[in-house]
């Protein structure tokens, strides 16, 4: 699956890190780095992380698994 984090919005609350620590990491106090292409097996965790983000900074692909090619 594909994700992007709007780091302008992200305020380093680290909710996502608690819920999907394989895909979101804090380097230092506030600087978030993330895996833009998490394994599909971790979709549930990543979706939970996105839902829990207090500022809704995590953008998730809505087309994964949908019909048509990636460049539809």
């Amino acid at each position: 699956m594909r994700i992007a984090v709007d780091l302008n919005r992200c305020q380093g609350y680290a909710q996502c890190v608690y819920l999907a620590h394989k895909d979101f990491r804090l380097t230092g106090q506030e600087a978030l780095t993330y895996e833009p292409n998490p394994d599909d097996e971790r979709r549930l965790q990543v979706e939970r992380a996105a839902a829990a983000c207090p500022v809704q900074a995590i953008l998730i692909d809505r087309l994964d698994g949908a019909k048509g090619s990636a460049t539809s």
Partner: protein
Amino acid sequence: MTVPATVAELVRQFRANGRIVIVGASLAGLRAAEALRAEGFTGSVTIIGDEPYEPYDRPPLSKQVLKGWVPADHTKLPRLREVNAQWRLGVTATGLDRAAKQVRLADGEQIPYDRLLIATGTRARQWPNPDEAALEGVYSLRSRDDAAQLQKALAAPPSRVVVIGAGFIGSEVASVCRELDLPVTVVERGSAPLVGALGGVIGEIAAEMHRDHGVDLRCGLGVSSLEGDSGGHVRRAHLSDGTTVDADVVVASLGSIRNVEWLEGAGLASGFWGVGCDAGGRAFDINGVVTDSIYVAGDVARSPHVLYEYQFLAMEHWDNAVLGAEAAAHNMVNLEPHYRPHLLLPGFWSGQFGLNIKSVGVPPFGDEIVFTQGSVKERRFAAAYGRRGRIVAAVAFDHGKWLEYYGKLIEQSGPFPPPPPGWDHPPDMKPIPAEFPQPGVPTAIPDVVLTGHDPSERGAEFRPRPR
């Protein structure tokens, strides 16, 4: 039919069957296409991009990807909705015929449009000496391919990396080098890293940050030439003070060039700083007249901003691309009075040396700075920029959550120095000069630039039309 009814019918027909062409298949292009569909546009959308890849995200390239944590091809942008577009990837737009309303492609094809969005962004400025730039081991960083190559070179590992230019990308590259435990020398013509974007006071803090992390930082110096070995691999950088630095990887982070060459001759207000447009993304022609069918968004756009004396603002920031694309898409399929302005308060983030640096507003518009929260010593603070008693920007080091507060004050042209929120005030809250370089002093060009008042003032060529 009454006139309003006829207009409504035309709009309905356009939304159903119109042809929209987007040139530039990256962040702004993709978000515009998604927004067009979200607005109910069901006509044809064609997206033209010279890179062979579907849209991907650039910020991770200089961070996660260089570090080797994420492969470069894992950065495809998520699709927020179906765009149902004709994708023309790997082909360059080479010309625009406004009279025939066609975009010319490198393969000779002409793509007709009813409405066009220009989202061709910027490219990295290459090392100016072409022979030296062609040496193996010399890189710049803008695309997925750049990142993949540079990542490989850093993993080799090199004996030393030289980074030329300490703007945001140069600083992020240096930071990654140190995280990878690579010796790195940063050469910056300005007095400190980030001075163009954030001024000398913050630049000094950034310089300490570099040095504390073991970067060999050389400011006030340029690289005069690069030397290669007999195999054509870079070996040494010669600096303007006569010294040399041995290195086998050189990263030129010299700022960017706007991709406007393909618009040559189209009569748009395009030039060095990008394509001039109104706050609704509608492109200006060369005489400052707004066009009806051509729109601009993202890094290549330049539009007047009400908060900054209506000066044209050029911004190379992620959220500017997203929000500018959404506003342009909305205006492409709506009519006055339903136009929407794109009057974003500029904002960016950067992650380097384990720190989160964020800013809102246009710091170089200010001439004074005041530390309002936290502690510079602990590298955890917020500071505000002011001009003539008004707050115009703010910057935060590991203090991101306070930026919204400063952003609101900036939007209201609040007082400077601003009333700091809450607690945690530094002992000395006296405004001091922010120390931006004088115009003309060479330094990295900041990512947000005020470029004057009228669309042709900076860069666009003036060609009066015969009456």
